[in-house]
């Protein structure tokens, strides 16, 4: 696992843009609602994350940060 998106689910507005932009299709939406009343973004397979940052950069609401684990 190289890294992963860190999702501040409470801030998510459920626009799904991150879903569309992930090159490895690991972003999806929750079943449940957050306190804003929307289904929020979740990463369904962190192992596959390339840490490309696309989801974070496209997110209009600063919901996602992406981390990369240091080598070794």
């Amino acid at each position: 696992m190289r890294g992963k998106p860190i999702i501040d689910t409470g801030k998510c507005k459920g626009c799904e843009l991150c879903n569309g932009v992930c090159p490895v299709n690991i972003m999806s939406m929750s079943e449940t609602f957050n306190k804003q009343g929307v289904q929020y973004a979740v990463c369904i397979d962190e192992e596959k994350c390339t840490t490309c940052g696309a989801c974070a950069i496209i997110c209009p609401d600063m919901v996602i940060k992406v981390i990369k684990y240091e080598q070794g």
Partner: protein
Amino acid sequence: METKKFKYVYDKPEALVDKVTHYCPGCGHGIVHKLLAEVMDEFGVREKAIIVAPVGCSVLIYDYMNFDGCEASHGRAPAVATGLKRVHPDNIVVAYQGDGDLLAIGTGEAIHAANRGENFTTIFINNAIYGMTGGQMAPTTMENQITATTPTGRDPMDVGYPIRGCELLNSLEAPVFIERCSIHDFKNTLKTKKAIKKGIKNQIEGRGYSFIEVLSTCPTNWGMKPQEAADWVKDTMVPYYPLGNFRDN
């Protein structure tokens, strides 16, 4: 594994305030705000920056940017930015404007600030609609696009063709940088950031007026889901508003 060392590939810029915006889900404004904040961080000019907020959905941008901010009346951001910048030539002034703001009521101010070559940076959000007031025709509304004031679609024979901002300003001598970009996908979003970065760099170097048009989305007033809206930008707007650099002096 949780304690593994890591670094941020993407972290919240310092120049951005950590709060929930008033924007609709998937609105392009949020994306561009972030790009602007990142650029301010990267140049380390947050403490010199002044954002000039338009009247439009982004009227509260000064609440989201972690630096000084100034409201402008509808369309007059270029004049306000001129006043600010003439007083503080060393500050970094950004006029952030919508398409109604810049190309309708504010046409004169936009053209004249550009023509004077004022040393500030304009970010022009073209979402083909008046977002804040609930979806009326903008100067950039596409042919046949249905809006609150074009209930049967924009008819160019009656109200004219959509205006292309970059091309209009490109007829002037003074601007040093004019580019049209888009945030409809990841690649173009990165290009947009690059253009904004160039615009701020020009200002830091005192080179004059830079204009970055960003094709953006208004899912709410377009009546589309955010991803559909992004696709509409690609399929409908980009062909009429060609992306790319128009000037880089």
